[in-house]
């Protein structure tokens, strides 16, 4: 009865009633939309936090009334204290890295699209899938709850370095209950990511339809599959790390807290712990994490580009996929490059520098695949392609900064400057956001059955693209002059002349944020009033375009699917790209 074993869970009946249908749904499409919506809300909160920080950086005495209401201690009269600035920075990083960048491109689109792209009716474990969303949701609520407790959010950064994060409320505002809630929230996020990765892996391995060999899978499916492995192995390390941190905080153990440590004139009752151990454990997760963020972006862009350039990617599915596998594998051996200035042995810095430079090779191969594929192409500049090209541009710009940071000698100058902040916003933050937008404009018709407005989409792209460069190139330049990161104001004499650059960044960031209102308007208006989407509006060749928009509950309306060739394998005689899903569908 293996066959029914495999699918008993998958062939659940269509749900009845509002709650089962839209709230506690086990349908992977609903869960995908729930994740995407959660990420949108989180992205909005994270963006508002960054505005508050930027306003404070440019006008240190500015009154931000809502902050005074939110935290009378952290921002008396609306002017934030340096500690509260760090709290906002911590929550900006936490919310953006975990609940936006990790969640949206993987859990959001992946949940919706992966089962359809492999021709399955649902994920392998629909109930686990529902559980992983709701656990993420609770984790998100806990993270947001830190704003409303008297102490406010923690100030130890999204990396929560011990011993600052481990000693408790003596370390400063937010280090009491704020840090506890933070730890719990991240632990829950780990659990949800582990469950989600497990589902992605098993679905890809076991639920592919007839003829869907690995070589015929959509490139986005490949990226999600690879990423699920990276994510599974990385979050499996963060979870015990959170456990050790919580034990140090609440049970009095000394895993990370050294002996003789004095905080606020109080000797800490711990002995012998190793703060470096925390950094090793955290970055063993943390570096794969940035690839967990970027690999789905690779997949989405590689998936979208062939449709709009009307030809396969250079090297077919193999080159780009093997580049992704290489990136995913190497991501586990480079974590020490975050710790060049941590007091780690300089010899170890050399050891970590070499694979860090090696990992640029598959990354560059991927970039070259995308760029060379444009050569001789019959390009259609629709919004999804614009965002994909924007992704490539941001990824290259960010990657170039990476060369300087990968070398311990230049890194020791640049490490604590805003050069790093600009670097990772380009290469991980905003590239992933641009790929997420590419995916949104591409898949919106399939997800909601309506077309987005193209003109507004293009306007949104150009404003975002220019805005991003204004903010973050300026940030890298100020970093090269020595502007220190994590400072809430320009205090040193040599930094004060940077004030005009800071104000320019702040205004650009506010305008960049305002441009997102165009996107929000476009999404909401089109969801209800947009023109009805045909089944395959882009002339794409993967399986999700071979069903109705939006797909029925069981994805293909009970049809038998037999796949005969991959999405980028065309007939030898036809040089033209096909305009319908290449995998053939047999009968009904």
């Amino acid at each position, binding site marked *: 009865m*293996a066959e029914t074993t495999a699918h008993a869970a998958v062939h659940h009946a269509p749900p009845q009633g509002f709650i089962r249908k839209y709230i506690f749904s086990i349908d992977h499409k609903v869960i995908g939309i729930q994740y995407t919506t959660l990420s949108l809300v989180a992205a909005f909160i994270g963006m508002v936090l960054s505005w508050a920080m930027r306003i404070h950086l440019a006008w240190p005495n500015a009154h931000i009334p809502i902050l005074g209401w939110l935290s009378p201690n952290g921002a008396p009269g609306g002017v934030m204290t340096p500690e509260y600035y760090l709290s906002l920075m911590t929550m900006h990083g936490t919310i953006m890295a975990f609940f936006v960048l990790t969640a949206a491109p993987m859990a959001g689109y992946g949940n919706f699209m992966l089962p359809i792209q492999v021709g399955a009716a649902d994920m392998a474990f629909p109930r686990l899938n529902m559980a992983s969303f709701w656990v993420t949701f609770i984790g998100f609520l806990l993270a947001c709850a830190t704003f409303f407790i008297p102490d406010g959010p923690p100030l130890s950064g999204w990396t929560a370095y011990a011993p600052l994060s481990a000693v408790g409320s003596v370390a400063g505002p937010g280090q009491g209950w704020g840090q506890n809630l933070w730890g719990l929230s991240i632990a829950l996020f780990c659990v949800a990511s582990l469950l989600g990765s497990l589902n992605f892996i098993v679905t890809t391995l076991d639920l592919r339809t007839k003829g869907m060999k690995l070589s015929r899978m959509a490139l986005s499916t490949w990226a999600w599959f690879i990423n699920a492995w990276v994510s599974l192995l990385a979050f499996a390390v963060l979870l015990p790390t959170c456990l050790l941190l919580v034990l140090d905080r609440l049970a009095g153990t000394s895993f990370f807290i050294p002996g003789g440590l004095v905080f606020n004139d109080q000797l800490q009752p711990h002995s012998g712990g190793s703060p470096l151990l925390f950094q090793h454990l955290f970055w063993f997760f943390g570096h794969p994490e940035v690839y967990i963020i970027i690999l789905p972006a690779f997949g989405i862009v590689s998936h979208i580009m062939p449709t709009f350039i009307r030809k396969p990617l250079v090297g077919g599915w193999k080159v780009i996929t093997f580049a992704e596998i290489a990136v995913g594998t190497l991501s586990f051996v480079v974590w020490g490059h975050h710790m060049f200035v941590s007091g780690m042995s300089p010899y170890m810095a050399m050891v970590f520098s070499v694979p860090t430079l090696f990992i640029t090779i598959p990354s560059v191969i991927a970039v070259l695949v995308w760029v060379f594929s444009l050569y001789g192409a019959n390009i259609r500049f629709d919004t999804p392609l614009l965002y994909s090209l924007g992704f490539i541009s941001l990824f290259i710009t960010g990657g170039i900064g990476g060369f300087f940071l990968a070398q311990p000698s230049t890194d020791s100058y640049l490490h604590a400057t805003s050069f790093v902040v600009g670097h990772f916003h380009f290469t991980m933050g905003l590239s992933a956001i641009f790929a997420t937008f590419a995916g949104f404009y591409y898949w919106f018709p399939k997800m909601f059955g309506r077309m987005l407005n193209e003109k507004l989409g293009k306007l949104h792209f150009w404003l975002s693209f220019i805005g991003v460069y204004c903010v973050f190139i300026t940030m890298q330049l100020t970093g090269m002059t020595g502007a220190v990161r994590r400072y809430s104001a320009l205090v040193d004499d040599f930094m004060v002349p940077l004030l005009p650059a800071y104000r320019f960044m702040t205004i650009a960031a506010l305008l960049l944020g305002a441009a997102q209102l165009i996107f929000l308007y476009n999404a909401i208006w089109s969801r209800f009033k947009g023109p009805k989407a045909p089944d395959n509006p882009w002339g794409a060749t993967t399986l999700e375009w071979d069903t109705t928009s939006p797909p029925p509950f069981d994805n293909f309306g009970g049809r038998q699917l037999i796949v005969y060739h991959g999405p980028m394998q065309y007939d030898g005689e036809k040089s033209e790209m096909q305009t319908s899903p290449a995998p053939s569908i047999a009968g009904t």
Partner: protein
Amino acid sequence: MATTIPEPPRISDRLRDYSGNGGKNWIPAAGNARVLQDRRFNPAQTGIWVALAAITMSFAALTSALVVRQGVSVGWGHITLPPILFSNTFVLLASSVTLEFARRRVTSYARGIESNKAVPMGWLAATLFLGLLFIAGQYTAWLQLKSQGLYLATNTNSSFFYLFTGVHAAHILGGLLGLVYVMSKLHRSVLRRSTFAACAQYWHFMDALWLYLLLLLWTRI
């Protein structure tokens, strides 16, 4: 090995259509599901393998934490492991044996050789009992350490001892829930071979993991 469902497997046409696994295990038109199910991977078992990979990674992280922490520690003493750990080990290994007996009996029952559900149920209950006995034994070990004045935060050795044994015990509790699930399925005669196999896979892995942890605690703590 046959299905654990007493009646012959029925496969509706609709379910046949989604063979999964790229169609490698596509059922032929007049297909015999019994042939198929013996060589096919199924989501329950694959899922457990993937989960075990994650669990392995977690314990590897904790092990490396132990090694690093021991490396920076001055005056790393040793604590004598409570002797009951060794009899606990024996109990846990015995539970794996009874689980394998249960598998044979379940198979015979499913093939119709055995008509009495009580026999496989008995072996499963024995496994469950041994699992609970193991947990009780671990708890006794904690009490013994406590009576020596060694608590979680006393020193790094005791921290790591409680950490490893505690996290392992939590995983064993998960395995016990799996056993209860298998027993309830068998009770209703709807147990699938894959459900049993997935549960057994997990249970044996927890055995092997405990042997590794015992060695680690014995040599390092």
